[in-house]
């Protein structure tokens, strides 16, 4: 191979995002270490398990692109699940329960947006506060115990099939398509990176940046409400701490996917790859009988490594 061809090859490789390398490397490692990993049922399982995370990571990408953060999204998802279960039990209707979950999710999202956009409270402290509120509501509603005895029809949403495809994947695909459409094919989508990169310019262009921010956080809450349906279906019950901490996996997926915490640069496909990477990591460690504490440490280290390479790239520029 001539030097020119090598350099060309390197530059093509250089354009492949880091998350793709990480994903391929993880798959290779786990496939060689545990025979159960690269079977069709397990790979499907990884995707199905990742669907809930994707629902959180998609809006998180938007939010981080605006130089924001949503630490409350795991607690809001949990609250959505608790409300869904409580309302479904009280009314006997899953539909009413689901609508209630969507409403509470949207309400928390808009509350975050209002506190951040109108009251100018920094996003991390806003959403830390609403995390406390949502978590507190979960505990108060359930009195710290699980809500069980939900209608059996609920199970379809996580373990059912639609046209031969697992239903959570259908939901995840629709969510991805919609969020992709919003980010890359609507005017709202063009405002998202501008909010992070140059909010002042956006304001001068006559855009009501506050409303846009509220809409973005609102979408996050709504997606948490949708995810609540899958989560409740998955565990056939609601538990006050079911998804506490899932915001970390969502933020990790976005960071690993190459979205920047500053400057408003983001990439939705990267988030999808990031979500699958986290899913593969957790699944593979699970198959190797690693406790969840090790999984959390690995996700944390993955984020730090991703941010480290980000920092190197920034320094090179």
């Amino acid at each position: 191979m001539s030097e020119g061809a090598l350099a060309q090859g390197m530059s093509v490789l250089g354009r492949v995002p880091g998350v793709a390398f990480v994903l391929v490397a993880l798959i290779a490692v786990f496939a060689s270490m545990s025979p159960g990993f690269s079977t069709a049922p397990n790979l499907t399982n990884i995707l199905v398990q990742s669907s809930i995370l994707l629902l959180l990571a998609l809006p998180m990408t938007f939010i981080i692109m605006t130089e924001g953060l949503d630490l409350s999204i795991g607690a809001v998802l949990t609250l959505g699940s608790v409300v869904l279960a409580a309302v479904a039990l009280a009314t006997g209707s899953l539909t009413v329960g689901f609508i209630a979950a969507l409403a509470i999710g949207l309400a928390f999202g808009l509350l975050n947006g209002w506190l951040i956009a109108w009251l100018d409270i920094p996003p991390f402290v806003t959403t830390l506060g609403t995390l406390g509120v949502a978590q507190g509501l979960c505990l108060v509603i359930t009195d710290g115990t699980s809500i069980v005895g939900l209608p059996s029809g609920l199970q379809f949403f996580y373990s059912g099939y639609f046209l031969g495809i697992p239903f959570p994947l259908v939901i995840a695909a629709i969510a991805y398509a919609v969020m992709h459409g919003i980010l890359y094919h609507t005017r709202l989508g063009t405002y998202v990176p501008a909010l992070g990169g140059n909010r002042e310019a956006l304001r001068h262009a006559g855009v009501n940046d506050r409303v846009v921010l509220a809409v973005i956080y609102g979408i996050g809450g709504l997606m948490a409400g949708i995810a609540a349906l899958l989560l409740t279906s998955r565990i056939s019950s609601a538990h006050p701490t079911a998804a506490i901490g899932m915001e970390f996996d969502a933020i990790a997926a976005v960071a690993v996917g190459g979205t920047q915490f500053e400057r408003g640069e983001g990439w939705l496909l990267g988030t999808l790859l990031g979500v699958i990477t986290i899913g593969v990591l957790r699944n593979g460690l699970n198959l190797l009988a690693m406790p969840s504490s090790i999984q959390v440490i690995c996700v944390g280290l993955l984020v730090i490594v991703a941010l480290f390479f980000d920092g190197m790239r920034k320094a090179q520029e």
Partner: protein
Amino acid sequence: MSQIEAAAPKFKLTVSRDLTDVAYRLLAVALICIALSLVSDAFLTANNLLNVLRQASLVFFMASGLTLVILTGKIDLSIGATVGLSACVAATVIKSTGSPWLGAAAAIGVGSIVGLGNGLMVTKLRIPSFIATYGMLWVAQGATYYYMSGQSVYGFPTGFRALGSGYLFGIPIPIYLMVAFLVIGYFFTKRTTYGQQIYAIGANTVAARLSGIPVNSRLNLVFVLSGAMAGLASLIYLARLNSAEGDIGETLTLPTIAAVVIGGTSLFGGVGSLFGTFIGGLILTLILNGMNLLNLNANWQPLVTGLIVLLAVWLDMKTRSKTDSN
């Protein structure tokens, strides 16, 4: 001469601003105390008041290091997890060696290492502090769970337990420690170059760097101090609880941040004080104590703490934007 005249009133204004800030918060403390003594007979007893102060001292130890970090305009979200990891390591060290001193060294050492990790991520890797310390939160928490593997460690020597539950002249020992650290902290922040540089970095990092302040090394220092104080707090917590489990620090971050923001330290850096944080911790503890006395279920605590954080930050922003426009 004219320069001095121009500068003098400005200085006077900031001093009175600090004083009014503290006065408002002391007024809040007084109002809460009056309200609680009206609704509950158990409130105005020496036992309960000392108990409140003891709880407030624990919050203060965690929040004092965090105050320094926030004064520089950064944040440390890993405090609770650092307390958890330090407490668990210290617990096993005390258990296996029988020496509280080695345990104390372990706790403060672990806390400092975690803090240094935070500092290096922020200064060397240039990761925003909220995300670096958030990642650290989960790494430290995972490490704690792994280290304890579901076990709990309990039953410590009496001498060590005095640190959390002992009395001297009828007053709990942690309160003496808090007063000592308040005095040391006051001199460190207000009367040393280091302290003034911390304020300067928070007020304007670029200006601080240009005027020759070693910004990165001061940032590392405040993160290490934050971790070390979390380690110290973990000892008092451990001595009080007399047991350690993996989830020991999980719920501590939100109240700690609450104490700092209630105390009037601005999340944007440069404004605030350790004394303010002490009062902030006191206000938070009084409210939680009141809920306790009124038999409100502990499940309400995260909800109320979350609301207090939002309210405190909002009030702070409101008063600040008013004075800024003046």
